């Protein structure tokens, strides 16, 4: 990282949150370094947003501790945590123009008007919102709203930036650019960032480390490449795209459609090889995606040429792409599919 991190390390120890009788987070522990970008990844309902909101102080934990820069903030009100959030809905104030919105945090800190105006101008430039200071949220595009929400959070120079799926309401094309902007911005500011998302690609591109959450527990923590290459369990593998699941010995092998291979006659491969037949083959843009039946199971594999249905093929999975898990893999999905099979 080129700049000295100005952010604050964040510590979470044994954090538990319950909504009524529903336990949403089970003793989650996590240490985030100063200036680190961490993505909380998981499907909806996994507790990632709850974790973020308890860091912000919007949700009261039933147990555990949250520290920022060594300071215990577990019981602090939201305004005394030094963590600024970008909301999924942006939560822009409909009655306040862009300049007032971005300057709000500075006004409540008692800055004088000239200083606020200067800082607001700086933020407008940084976020490419020049000339829009007098607009109301209703007069902005989705991308502009997202940048205003970002500006409001960044204007107060927070120690920790909390991002709650800030790109989920943007067009796919806009999103691509915003990702890189966000990463550049975070690195140049040296700020600690926690980013909630259900989009694995977004998490991969943005984060130094990814935390995969499963039903209120941390399933795996690690740098994107490590998670990609060595998912700790079937749940993580499935979430990171290794959606194919074939029985192998006492367990299963999981792999990504783009990493499986249909072998030429006589070709050998270091890794598991299955005998199967082509059930279906469809063009998927630049490649063909074949559905291959192996006994009772089916797997999707990308192939360069079209394969005729009912052709017998050998499906190989290179050793480094084959993720092996025991039959009792702690994934609900696998339990369900076994239950169906039985």
């Amino acid at each position, binding site marked *: 990282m080129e700049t000295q991190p100005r952010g604050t390390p964040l510590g979470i120890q044994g954090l538990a949150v319950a909504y009524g009788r529903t336990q949403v987070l089970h003793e989650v522990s996590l240490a985030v370094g100063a200036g680190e970008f961490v993505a909380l990844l998981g499907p909806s309902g996994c507790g990632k947003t709850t974790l973020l909101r308890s860091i912000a102080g919007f949700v009261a934990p039933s147990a555990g501790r949250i520290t920022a820069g060594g300071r215990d903030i577990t019981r602090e009100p939201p305004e005394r945590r030094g963590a600024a959030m970008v909301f999924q809905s942006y939560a822009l104030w409909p009655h306040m123009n862009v300049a007032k919105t971005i300057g*709000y945090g500075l006004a409540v800190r008692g800055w004088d008007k000239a200083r606020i105006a200067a800082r607001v101008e700086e933020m407008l430039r940084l976020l490419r919102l020049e000339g829009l200071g007098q607009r109301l949220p209703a007069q902005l595009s989705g991308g502009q709203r997202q940048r205003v929400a970002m500006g409001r959070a960044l204007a107060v120079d927070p120690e920790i930036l909390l991002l709650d799926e800030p790109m989920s309401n943007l067009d796919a094309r806009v999103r691509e650019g915003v990702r890189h902007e966000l990463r550049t911005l975070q690195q140049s500011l040296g700020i600690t960032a926690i980013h909630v998302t259900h989009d694995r690609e977004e998490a991969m591109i943005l984060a130094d480390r990814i935390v995969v959450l499963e039903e209120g527990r941390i399933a795996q923590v690690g740098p994107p490449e490590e998670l990609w290459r060595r998912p700790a369990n079937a749940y993580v593998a499935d979430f990171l795209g290794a959606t194919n699941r074939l029985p192998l010995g006492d367990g299963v092998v999981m792999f990504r459609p783009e990493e499986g291979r249909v072998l030429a006659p006589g070709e050998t491969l270091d890794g598991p090889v299955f005998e199967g037949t082509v059930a279906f083959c469809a063009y998927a843009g630049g490649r063909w995606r074949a559905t291959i039946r192996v006994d009772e199971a089916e797997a999707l594999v990308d192939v360069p040429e079209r394969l005729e249905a009912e052709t017998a093929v050998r499906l190989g999975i290179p050793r480094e792409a084959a993720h092996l898990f025991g039959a009792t893999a702690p994934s609900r999905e696998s339990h369900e599919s076994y239950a169906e099979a039985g």
Partner: protein
Amino acid sequence: MMARANVAWWLPRAILLAAFAFFVFGPLVNLVLWSVAEAWFWPNRLPSQYGFRFWERVFRPEGQAMESLWLSIWIASLTTLLCLGVSIPAAWALAKARLRWRALILLVFLLPQAFPNLPVYINVARIFFTFDLNGTVMGVVLVHAAHGLVYSIWIATAAFAAIDDDLELAARNIGASGFTAFRTVTLPLAAPGIAASAIFVFLESLDEFTATYFVGAPEVRTLPLLLFSAAAGGNMQIAAITALILLVPSVLFMLLVERFLRAEVLARVGR
């Protein structure tokens, strides 16, 4: 297209519309006629002599009507202020603070409406008597406020509930205290709903008769009381003019309410 030209299609509609217009505007026309009737004797269908003599009498500086009008407006203003003072914090708590007995508390504010007016107000008058509140503006304001709180609490609760919690949290999140966030974000956003509730309270107080009669009369003579005594004394012209004066603020405020009170606010009432 054929159906539209059909008499069976438009005739019932026309009759319904005419009946509706008659029910709404018929009494009004009668009021206007009475207010300018200098002589109108049975069995004449219409007044035999028209003029503004009674209007002039009512608007004379020493006329009771103007005095009563100002008193009514004064009482309505105090009632509105009192109701807002109670309902804004109460409604905020009801809408945002996740109170356990929320539904029950909201229901309690409806209670004054549930019982027949007369016994309630007679008892209020008896209790106020022991506190020397009978015949005072304060006493009338209190009893009007008890009634007005129904509107102000329910409508203000709906107005607060219509505001996404995240909007206030977004302010807290970047350093605003709970009160600052409320003052700068939640209150301005709820203002249209609260203004609408204030208008309802004001109008209810302005028109209120029964409670004022038992608690305020004869010392506190509001416009509706004046109207009643004029009508009871057979002075239909004064009664008609008083009624027309009472209509003015109602119509003005109703036009305002229509602008303020959007459907999405009303939809949250009782949620």
